[in-house]
C-alpha cells in the first residue's frame, strides 16, 4: 500500500514538469501534450468496471487536472482569482479539450465505454472548483441523458456528477443574478425523480449521499429511510442524518418517524446505525456545547448532563412516544446500553422525585427497565443503589396520583375555559403516574412495610372513578404482583379488585344523583353480590315523571358505570389464571356483571361484556363450551372489529382448552376458513384470522390431519393470492409463519409436503384466471417457478430443526425422505395426468 501511494504521488507530481515545460520548452508544445493526454484518456475508456486500474487512473486524471488548475491559478496571481469570468489557462484548455473529446463517448454502444466516460466526467466535475460555462452546459446535457442509461452502473456515475451540479446551481440561486433559467431547477427535479424511481438501489444510494441537503430535497432524502434496500436505509442513518447537523431542525413528527423506522428496521445494521445516531449524535445536539463547523473534527463528546437528556426526550415528544409500544423505550434502552457515562452519572435524589416531569420520570423508568432486563442482572445492583426504597416510591406515587386526579377533576369541571391547556396538563400528569407504575411493577415487595403501604395506596386508587384506563390497567397489574402468586393470593387479588369495582359503582351512582330517586341506593354491593344490574331495575317506577332529557342522562350514566366497572374487571381477568368455579368472587361477578352486560342493549357495554365473558371462558371449560355458539354468533353477525374480537376469543379458548372443541363443532372450522378468505371485504378480519390460524397450527392445537391440511392450504394460497397483495398483515404474518412452522418440526414439514401439490395446482388456477388484458400477471403474482421454489425450500429437511442438533451444525446426514416423498408425489401426479390423457385420447 505504501509503494502504491508513492507511485501515486510520483504520478501526481511528475507530469507537472512536462506540462510546465510545454509552456516554455520547444520540443513539445501544449497542443502536443493535450493531444497525447487525450489519447491516453481514450485508452482508459474500454476498461471494464471490475478493473480497479480504471478507477485509479480516472482518479489520477482528476487529481492531476485539479493540481494543474490550482498551479495555473496560482501563477495568475490573486487579482484574477475573484474575477467573475474564468481566466483561460493551459489547464483549463486541457480540461476543455479532454471533456469535449470524451463527451461523444457518453452515447457509445459499448457499456464500459459509457461507464468510464461517465465516470470520468462526473469525477472531474467533482474535482474542479469551476468549469467554463459552455462546457458546463454540454456536460450537464450529456450526463442528463445517462441518468436513463440501461446500465445501473452508468446511471450511478451520472448522478454523482449531476448531484454536484445541482448543488452548485442552488448556491447560484441564492444569488438572484445567477439563477437564470428553469432548466436549472429542472435538474434537481429530475434527480429527485430518479431518487424515488430508479430500479437500482446503488443509484438511489449514490444520489442519497451526493445530493445537496436543502429544504426542497430533504423530504425526498429522508423518505429513503424506508427504501427497499437495507444499505440505502442504513446510509440515511449512518451518513445523511449525521451530516445533516442539528436534528432539532427536523419536525417533531419526522424525528419520531425516523427513530421508529430505524430502531425497528428489519435489518440489524440499520437498527444499529439508528441507535448510534440517537445516543451519539442527537444527544450531542442537546448536551453538546457548540456545533462543529463544517470540516472541523467533531468535538469530544460532551459530559453527560441530565438537562441534555431531558431535552432529548422532550425533542422526541416523550409524552407520546413513551407510551406502550412507542419508540422512546427502545431508543432509551439502546441509549443506556451504549452510554455507560450516562448510566453512572444519573442521580435520582429526593429533589429529582419531588419535581418530576414527563421527561425526567421517563429517564428513571427507562433506566430502571434497562437495568432490570439487560445484561443478565449485572446492572441490578446499579439500579438498587440509585432508586429509593419501596416506601418512598409509594409516597411519591401517592403525591403524583393526587395531583393527577385533581387535574382531571379540574378539567372535568371547567368544560370550556382553557381546555387545551388543562388537557395537556392532565396528559402529562397521567404519563407521570403511568411511568411510576411501570417502575412500581418491577419492585421487590419482600419488605413488608413497603408492601402494605403500596397495597393500600393502590387499592384506594382503584376506587377512584376518574382513574384513567391505562393507569387502571397498570394499577391492577401491580396489585396482582403484590398478592402472593398462589391460589390464595389470586383470591385476595380478586376480592380486593371487586371491592374497588363496588366502590366505583357507588361513587358514580351517588355523584350527581342528588337523591332524586331510589336508584341511588341501588348500590354496587348489590351489583356484585345481588341479582341485577344497574341497568334495568327501577326504570319503570318514575318513567312518567322523568323528562326526556333526564332519562337520557340517566341512560348515559348507566352506560358509563357499566363501562368503567367492566374495564376494571377486564383488567383483573387478564391477570387471573385459576379455575373460575373455585373462586366465589369470580362466579358472582360473572353472574351479576358480565352476563347481564353481554345481554345489554347498549352495543359498547355488550361488546366489553363479551371480552370479559371470553376471559372467564378461558378459566372455565364448561363455560367455554356453553358459549361457543354465542361467540360464533358474534363473529357471523358482528361488525369487523367485533368479528376480530370473537375470532381472538375463540382462538384463545382453543389454545387453552384444546382442539376437541374444534372437532366437536364443525361450524367453528368454517368460521376460520371463512375469515381467512374474507379478503377484500374485510382485510382486517383476514389479517386477524391469519394470525389466529398460525397460532393454532404452530401451537399444535390443531393436529388432526384433515383440519390442519385444510388450514395450511388456505394459508399458503392466501400468501400468494394476488388479492392479498395489499394486505400487509396477511403477507407479513405468513412470511414469518410459514418458514417458522415448517422448520420447527419434521411433522410440520411433512404436512407442508402433503398439501404442496394441491396448493400449487390451486395457485396455478388462480394465475390462469388473471385477466392478461387488464394487468400484467407477473406484477400481480409470483411465478409458478417462484412458488415451487418456496415449496421446495420450506420442505428442505436440512433446514428443519432437529432435537439435540444445534442449528449451525454441519447437516450432511439428514433424513431426506420429505423431499423424496415430495418428488414421488410429483411423479405420481404426472403419471396420473399422463394416463388420463392417454385414456381420453383413446376413448
Amino acid at each position, binding site marked *: 500500500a505504501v509503494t502504491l501511494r508513492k*507511485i501515486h504521488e510520483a504520478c501526481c507530481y*511528475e507530469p507537472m514538469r*512536462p506540462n510546465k515545460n510545454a509552456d516554455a520548452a520547444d520540443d513539445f508544445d501544449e497542443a502536443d501534450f493535450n493531444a*497525447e*493526454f487525450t489519447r*491516453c484518456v*481514450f*485508452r482508459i475508456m*474500454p476498461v471494464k468496471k471490475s*478493473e480497479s*486500474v480504471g478507477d485509479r*487512473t480516472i482518479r489520477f486524471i482528476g487529481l492531476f487536472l485539479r493540481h494543474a488548475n490550482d498551479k495555473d491559478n496560482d501563477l495568475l496571481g490573486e487579482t484574477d482569482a475573484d474575477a467573475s469570468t474564468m481566466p483561460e489557462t493551459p489547464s483549463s484548455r486541457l480540461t476543455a479539450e479532454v471533456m469535449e473529446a470524451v463527451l*461523444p*463517448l457518453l*452515447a*457509445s*454502444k*459499448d457499456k464500459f*465505454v*459509457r461507464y468510464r466516460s461517465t465516470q470520468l466526467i462526473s469525477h472531474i466535475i467533482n474535482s474542479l472548483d469551476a468549469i467554463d460555462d459552455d462546457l458546463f452546459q454540454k456536460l450537464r446535457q450529456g450526463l442528463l*441523458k445517462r441518468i436513463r442509461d440501461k446500465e445501473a452502473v452508468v*446511471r450511478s456515475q451520472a448522478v454523482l456528477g449531476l448531484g454536484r451540479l445541482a448543488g452548485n446551481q442552488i448556491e447560484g440561486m441564492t444569488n438572484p443574478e445567477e439563477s437564470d433559467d428553469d432548466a436549472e431547477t429542472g435538474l434537481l427535479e429530475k434527480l429527485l425523480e430518479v431518487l*424515488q*424511481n*430508479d430500479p437500482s*438501489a446503488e443509484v*438511489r444510494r449514490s444520489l442519497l449521499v451526493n445530493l445537496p441537503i436543502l429544504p426542497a430535497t430533504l423530504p425526498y432524502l429522508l423518505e429513503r429511510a*424506508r*427504501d*427497499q434496500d437495507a444499505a440505502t436505509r442504513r446510509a440515511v442513518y449512518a451518513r445523511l442524518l449525521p451530516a445533516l447537523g442539528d436534528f432539532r431542525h427536523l419536525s417533531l413528527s419526522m424525528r419520531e418517524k425516523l427513530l421508529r423506522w430505524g430502531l*425497528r*428496521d*428489519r435489518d440489524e445494521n440499520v437498527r444499529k446505525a439508528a441507535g448510534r445516531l440517537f445516543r451519539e449524535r442527537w444527544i450531542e445536539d442537546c448536551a453538546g456545547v457548540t456545533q462543529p463547523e463544517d470540516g472541523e473534527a467533531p468535538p469530544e463528546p460532551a459530559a453527560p448532563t441530565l438537562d441534555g437528556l431531558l431535552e432529548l426526550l422532550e425533542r422526541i415528544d416523550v409524552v407520546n412516544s413513551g407510551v406502550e409500544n412507542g419508540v422512546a423505550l427502545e431508543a432509551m434502552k439502546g441509549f443506556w446500553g451504549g452510554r455507560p457515562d450516562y448510566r453512572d452519572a444519573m442521580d435520582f435524589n429526593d429533589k429529582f422525585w419531588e419535581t418530576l416531569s414527563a421527561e425526567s420520570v421517563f429517564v428513571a423508568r427507562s433506566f430502571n427497565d434497562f437495568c432490570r432486563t439487560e445484561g443478565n442482572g449485572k446492572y441490578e445492583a446499579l439500579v438498587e443503589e440509585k432508586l429509593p426504597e419501596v416506601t418512598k416510591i409509594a409516597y411519591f406515587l401517592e403525591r403524583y396520583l393526587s395531583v393527577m386526579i385533581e387535574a382531571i377533576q379540574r378539567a372535568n369541571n371547567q368544560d370550556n375555559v382553557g381546555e387545551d391547556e388543562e388537557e395537556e396538563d392532565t396528559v402529562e400528569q397521567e404519563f407521570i403516574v403511568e411511568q411510576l407504575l411501570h417502575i412500581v411493577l418491577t419492585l421487590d415487595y419482600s419488605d413488608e412495610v413497603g408492601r402494605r403501604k403500596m397495597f393500600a395506596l393502590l387499592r384506594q386508587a382503584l376506587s377512584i372513578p376518574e382513574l384513567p384506563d391505562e393507569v387502571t390497567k397498570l394499577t391492577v397489574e401491580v396489585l396482582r404482583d403484590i398478592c402472593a402468586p398462589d391460589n390464595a393470593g389470586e383470591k385476595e387479588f380478586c376480592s380486593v379488585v371487586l371491592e374497588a369495582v363496588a366502590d366505583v359503582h357507588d361513587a358514580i351512582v351517588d355523584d350527581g344523583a342528588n337523591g332524586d330517586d331510589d336508584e341511588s341506593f341501588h348500590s354496587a354491593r348489590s351489583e356484585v353480590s345481588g341479582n341485577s344490574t344497574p341497568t334495568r331495575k327501577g326504570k319503570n317506577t318514575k318513567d312518567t315523571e322523568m323528562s326526556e332529557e333526564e332519562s337520557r342522562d340517566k341512560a348515559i350514566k348507566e352506560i358509563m358505570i357499566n363501562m368503567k366497572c367492566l374495564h376494571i374487571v377486564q383488567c383483573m381477568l*387478564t*391477570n387471573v389464571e385459576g379455575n373460575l368455579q373455585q373462586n366465589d368472587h369470580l362466579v358472582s361477578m360473572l353472574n351479576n356483571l358480565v352476563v347481564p352486560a353481554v345481554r345489554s342493549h347498549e352495543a359498547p357495554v355488550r361488546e366489553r361484556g363479551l*371480552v370479559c365473558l371470553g*376471559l372467564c371462558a378461558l378459566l372455565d371449560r364448561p363455560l367455554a363450551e356453553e358459549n361457543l355458539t354465542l361467540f360464533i354468533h358474534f363473529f357471523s353477525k358482528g361488525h369487523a372489529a367485533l368479528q376480530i374480537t370473537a375470532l*381472538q376469543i375463540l*382462538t*384463545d379458548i382453543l*389454545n*387453552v382448552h384444546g382442539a376437541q372443541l374444534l372437532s366437536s363443532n364443525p361450524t367453528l372450522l368454517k368460521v376460520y376458513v371463512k375469515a381467512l378468505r374474507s379478503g377484500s371485504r374485510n382485510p382486517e378480519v383476514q389479517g386477524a384470522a391469519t*394470525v*389466529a390460524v*398460525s397460532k393454532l397450527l404452530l*401451537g399444535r392445537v390443531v393436529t388432526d390431519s384433515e383440519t390442519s391440511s385444510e388450514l395450511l392450504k388456505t394459508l399458503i394460497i392466501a400468501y400468494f393470492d394476488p388479492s392479498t397483495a395489499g394486505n400487509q*398483515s396477511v*403477507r*407479513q*404474518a405468513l*412470511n*414469518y*409463519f410459514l418458514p*417458522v412452522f415448517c*422448520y*420447527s418440526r419434521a411433522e410440520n414439514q411433512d404436512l407442508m409436503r402433503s398439501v404442496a401439490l394441491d396448493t400449487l395446482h390451486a395457485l396455478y388456477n388462480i394465475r390462469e384466471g388473471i385477466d392478461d388484458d387488464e394487468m400484467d400477471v407477473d406484477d400481480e403474482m*409470483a411465478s409458478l417457478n*417462484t412458488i415451487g421454489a418456496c415449496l421446495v425450500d420450506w420442505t428442505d429437511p436440512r433446514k428443519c*430443526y432437529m*432435537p439435540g442438533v444445534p442449528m449451525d451444525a454441519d447437516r450432511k446426514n439428514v433424513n431426506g425422505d420429505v423431499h423424496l416423498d415430495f418428488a414421488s408425489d410429483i411423479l405420481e401426479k404426472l403419471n396420473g395426468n399422463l394416463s388420463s390423457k392417454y385414456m381420453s385420447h383413446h376413448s
Partner: protein
Amino acid sequence: PETATRQRKEKEPFEIDFTSALDGKLAETIFTQASSNSAISLPKKDWKSKTRNLLPDDKHFNSKQLLSLFLKPKARMNSKRNRFNSRIGTSSHAAQSGSVHAADMDE
C-alpha cells in the same frame, strides 16, 4: 514521453498499454456510437416505480405474538396442559429464524 510516468502502473495484472497506437478494433469499441438512444437507455416503463421503491409498513411479527394469547398477552399459551414444555426447543428456534425479518416477497 509524457506517458512514460504512467506506464509504471502496468505492474497490475491488468494492463493499459498507453504507448501503442489504438488498433482498429479498440478504436471501434471506443468510438462506435449506439444505434439509437433507446438502445442504451432504460425502458420507459422502468422510469417510474409504483412503490417509489419504498417498503410497506412493517407489521413486526415475532415469535412472541404467535406464542401468546390474544386476550392475555402475558400468559404463556398452553401453560396449563404443559404441552408447551415439549416445544421450548422449537420456540427458541422460531425466535432465531424469526429475528431475520425477511419480509420480502421475492425470494
